[in-house]
């Protein structure tokens, strides 16, 4: 894809998002100029995004850009360790999902253990120990000293 094509797609995408925001603003009650309603500013922000998106899409027409210049979309994601990235993201979502159910201590311990785990050496004890210390220390600092209120989950006495 050439840079020009990328910008056009990008611009059209934002025009779509802008129109969507305008519709949401319109549905939330626009009011009038004398008494602007809850959707008044949203309409303007949507229009703004749509107009800028349109300019983005057509801007290359007015510039003497190198027509042969290409943008390889895959290069932006080249060399990425996908397994590591997806593994971390899954753990993050699991943390949010389980926090209320299992409570802070258990969830933090297991998720930290998985995050600290070194897939190269495959030794479980260092990550287990680091996770134990991290969970204990964070609980002590934030819950005990700073009085943050973490979810207790299945063990309400913690």
């Amino acid at each position, binding site marked *: 894809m050439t840079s020009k094509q990328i910008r056009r797609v990008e611009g059209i995408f934002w025009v779509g998002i802008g129109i969507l925001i305008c519709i949401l603003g319109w549905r939330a009650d626009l009011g009038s100029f004398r008494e602007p309603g809850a959707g008044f500013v949203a309409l303007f922000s949507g229009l703004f995004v749509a107009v800028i998106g349109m300019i983005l899409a057509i801007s290359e027409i007015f510039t003497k850009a190198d027509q042969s210049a290409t943008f390889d979309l895959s290069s932006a994601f080249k060399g990425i360790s996908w397994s590591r990235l997806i593994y*971390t993201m899954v753990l993050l979502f699991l943390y949010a999902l389980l926090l209320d159910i299992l409570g802070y201590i258990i969830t933090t311990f297991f998720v930290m253990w998985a995050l600290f785990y070194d897939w190269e050496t495959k030794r479980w004890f260092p990550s287990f120990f680091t996770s134990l210390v991290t969970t204990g220390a964070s609980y002590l600092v934030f819950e005990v000293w700073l009085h943050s209120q973490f979810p207790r989950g299945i063990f309400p006495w913690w």
Partner: protein
Amino acid sequence: MNVFHDLLYGFGVAFQPWNLLSCFFGVFIGTLIGVLPGIGPVGTMSLLLPVTFGISPVTGIIMLAGIFYGAMYGGSTTSILVNIPREAASVVTCLDGYQMALQGRAGPALGIAAFGSFIAGTLSVVGLMVLANPLAALGVKFGPAEYFSLMCLGLSVLIYLTQGSILRGLIMAGIGLFFSLMGQDIITGKTRFTFGLTGLIDGVGLVPLVMGFFGISEILFNLEMLTERTVVKAKVKGLLPNKEDWRRSAKPIARGTLLGFFLGILPGAGGITSTFVSYALEKKFSKHPEQFGKGAIEGVAGPESANNAATGASLIPLFSLGIPSNVVAALLLGALMIHGIRPGPLLLTEHPEVFWGTVASMYVGNVMLLVLNLPLIGMWVKVLQIPYKILFPLILLFCFIGAYSAGNNVFDLYVMLFCGILGYLLRKFNYEPAPLVLAYVLGPMLEQNLRQGLILSDGSFWIFVSRPISAACLIITFVLLVSAVLPSLQKKRRVIAVEE
């Protein structure tokens, strides 16, 4: 005389044991996170924001401000020793700082960065002290029209000065504005744009949003390719710059301070721009411009001073007008508002302890930083050597704790993760998160003032152009926006960026 009296009062507040301790804690944590990758001052301040709920407002603000300027100090250490800037404002320091380190002059580079930062930081506090009062007096005369126009100007300046495409910056601002509208309408109380999610009734939280866009996305970005950092192995010694170093650095420090201070006052401009301009200026003034990029001490002294001067100056619009000029100032605004304090023209009269206490603590904090940075440099170097695979789970945990503690709500964790992934994808396509976050912060104020202005003028937009200050701000905003979409000017801007 009045200012002197007020400053003495401020020192009385700053020297109270708890405030002194929180100042030390702030600058220490600030330096630490300035050295560490990933979390940054914005993330750390978000993390510690809930901690301030249980302490007095002045103690909390002193700590948060300490993190802000402490991180600026810490950022120079990584730029010089590892050639990796933790903050955008430290990018320029890499150019000559790392070269000096490779030549065995890491000590003087770190030393001049610390001294330059100290001098500039202290002088900017003097400026803050002198200018805040007159600006606040002017601010009293501001109505909805002026506030609305000034916020438009602030946003435009930030976008204009972003490193990437202006058009992309403008789009980010529009999206940030929409994010700020989610939840209850500030005037009618009607719920809007919640998409049926009860967690959005109170709107998108500042802390999860900031943690997501700056903390999680940064971690995901770094996780893509885990590369080991090369820390300068030689022992860092001789931190005190010699006579020749001082002779070469004195003028760059002075110029950097002035430049940083005046650019820092501008809403949106801040530290990043001032470092680039300072570097370009020093190169132009130098008798040996060919040495720049090869270890010229002026290339470290000027930008580091400019960066720290801008830090203090960026608090001026916040304290005197109630307008945050960057994301960090926005977090300070959030912290003050949580405590029921509205920054703005009346802050100096209604809560003098907050303003003068913070100003005085910044003097104290700058001294603390000098003491922390020079003798403890060895410790910071050791911190730099902690492997990232150990650091990133800890940073993630801090992000989770910060996002959860702000509202004791798991929904905020999902918001943070959503913003993190969105931020990661946007960064992949060269969209910067800063305009989005600033627009999100300014959004409610912008909406309120626009709607109030229209109600006051019976629906006429004339109110925004008939008042001189408002008109001036809008004209500048218009010029900036038009220049943003003119291809020839865009091209010129790109050339300047490349030259810098």
